[in-house]
């Protein structure tokens, strides 16, 4: 029995090509008709892949044809964008995909859920049998180990999530923190929503236009504060998000100094996402103040991504161990072909799948 993976991803094809292909339960059925004993389709934003087990080789072109969204628009030249992994390479590829190593954003965990969902769907409709069951169960185990033993998922890699991550690194529990949003633009709203999603309940909004402030306050479940009172609010708040269209800095060290005297043991986290900046950079030199502008947030995101990339080698080691073990247990020596098991040919049911779980 041959184990294979045929697909295309952001590594091999541009979005224009990728969007021409997709797969569903019907595709799995047509794949089985074309000779696959077992077939599973994994579709994410950046990849469409078929994992299959077959007695005879099913050509890449045939699989590409099955995956085409509109068969009449299928162009055979697109088949060249597809990659194909057989046996051990297929096992290794799936382990890398499930662990997030092969993703566009290294270490993202969404692909794990998508893989699980794809497996459950295929299993429910009977397209995935004992071979793919063994393979995918092991892939989930590998992904969990990679996540827990390495730092591949550590750190936020987008500006929005960096803001929330930093706030949690400073304050821990955000539910008791007070946040002031200065400026009621789209960026302010997005950042405020991200903080609310992590438990912030005390949110104040201030804007030159009081009407817009009220509007945003209602949207994010906060209260509007008159614009001439926002500096006074700095005595109480823990987090300040500024994103106004002001040409000159609104907050300078001399404005903040009297406020800080009253809050020496409470840190103040300032997120300045305005361009030009609303807060004088010298504010970051003040005791207990942590100022991040859009560039420094991007820099933290880049550092997290670099940290994740450094973890790839550690993750690859874990994967290699599992690939070797899987090969020894389930693939025949030399040929690497999936070993025939006693239960092969028996009906696929939950009990038999559980028995073959790793």
């Amino acid at each position, binding site marked *: 029995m041959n184990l294979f993976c045929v697909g295309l991803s952001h590594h091999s094809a541009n979005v224009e090509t990728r969007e021409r292909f997709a797969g569903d339960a019907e595709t799995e059925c047509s794949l089985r008709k074309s000779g696959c004993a077992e077939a599973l389709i994994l579709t994410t934003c950046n990849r469409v892949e078929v994992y299959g087990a077959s007695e005879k080789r099913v050509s890449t072109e045939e699989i590409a044809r099955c995956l085409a969204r509109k068969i009449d628009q299928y162009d055979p030249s697109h088949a060249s964008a597809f990659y194909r992994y057989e046996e051990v390479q297929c096992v290794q590829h799936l382990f890398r995909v499930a662990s997030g190593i092969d993703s566009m954003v290294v270490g993202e965990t969404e692909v794990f859920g998508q893989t699980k969902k794809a497996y459950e769907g295929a299993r429910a409709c009977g397209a995935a049998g004992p071979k793919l069951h063994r393979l995918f169960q092991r892939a989930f185990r590998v992904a969990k180990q990679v996540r827990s033993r390495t730092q591949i998922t550590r750190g936020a890699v987008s500006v929005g999530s960096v803001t929330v991550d930093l706030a949690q690194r400073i304050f821990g529990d955000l539910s008791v923190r007070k946040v002031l949003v200065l400026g009621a633009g789209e960026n302010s709203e997005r950042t405020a929503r991200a903080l609310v999603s992590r438990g912030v309940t005390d949110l104040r909004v201030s804007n030159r236009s009081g009407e817009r402030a009220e509007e945003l306050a209602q949207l994010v479940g906060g209260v509007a504060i008159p614009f001439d009172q926002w500096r006074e609010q700095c005595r109480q708040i823990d987090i300040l998000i500024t994103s106004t269209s002001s040409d000159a800095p609104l907050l300078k060290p001399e404005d903040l100094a009297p406020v800080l005297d009253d809050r020496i043991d409470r840190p103040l986290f300032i997120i300045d996402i305005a361009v030009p900046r609303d807060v004088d950079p010298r504010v970051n030199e003040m005791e*207990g103040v942590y100022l991040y502008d859009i560039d420094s947030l991007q820099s933290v995101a880049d550092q997290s991504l670099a940290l994740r990339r450094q973890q790839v080698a550690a993750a690859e080691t874990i994967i290699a161990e599992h690939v070797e073990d899987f090969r020894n247990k389930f693939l025949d020596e030399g040929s690497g072909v999936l070993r025939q098991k006693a239960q092969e040919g028996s009906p696929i049911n939950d009990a038999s799948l559980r028995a073959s779980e790793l």
Partner: protein
Amino acid sequence: MDRHLLVLSTICYLAAVLRLVVALRARIFPRGRFNFFAIGLGFIFQTAFLSVRGHELHRCPLTNLFEVLIFLGWSVALIYMLIGPAYRLSLMGAFTAPLVFLIQAFALLAPIDVRHPVKLPVNSWLEFHASMSIVAYGAFALACVAGVMYLVQERQLKTHQMRSIFYHLPPLTDLFAAITRLLWLGFALYTLGLASGFFVGEPLPRIQVICAVGVWLLYAAILQGRHLRRLAPRRVAALCIIGFSAALTLLWGISFSAQLHSLP
């Protein structure tokens, strides 16, 4: 026999340190569980050592610098196990294990396990004073460790340069809360130890008393500054390191001078 127990204990702490070094080289921070168990096992062997030595001496084993250092290591491990999990400061173990390992390795390697030529009479107040003061030093040591963690985290947040340790350190506000509690705990125990020193019934060297009161005043000033909100958390963290260095110097001075006085 008793030294074998100590060697076993030191090996446990060394295991925690080695694991940390290996993990750091692989740019991975170990999970706190291993550290906690390694320190826990090391603590059990330390306790067994102190118990054996205590039975042998028929008193609290604080008769020379060697025993004082082991008692200090034991106190640090004890406070860590009480405070660490309570405040979810699991990474503190990664900082605590090297500290205890260094203290014990020095105690084992240096020729400081000198037995008193004459058997000293047991003085309960003196034993209470010494043991309470050293357990207080254990709390101050952990406040110092938390202070180092705070300064590392604060520096990264200020400079926007995040290293992998950043994602493992507790939030700044949690660390500062832990520092404050450790300082209060240490200060309360140290006050108790210092006060009991006045009931010893023997004249203590004036310089020791002045230094001990000096350390007490230093910690009192830190706590007062914190309480009145005159000291920023970063300064409190830095003062914890200075305070513990002063306390350690005093401890060494007291043990050294006590050993000199006991020589025939």
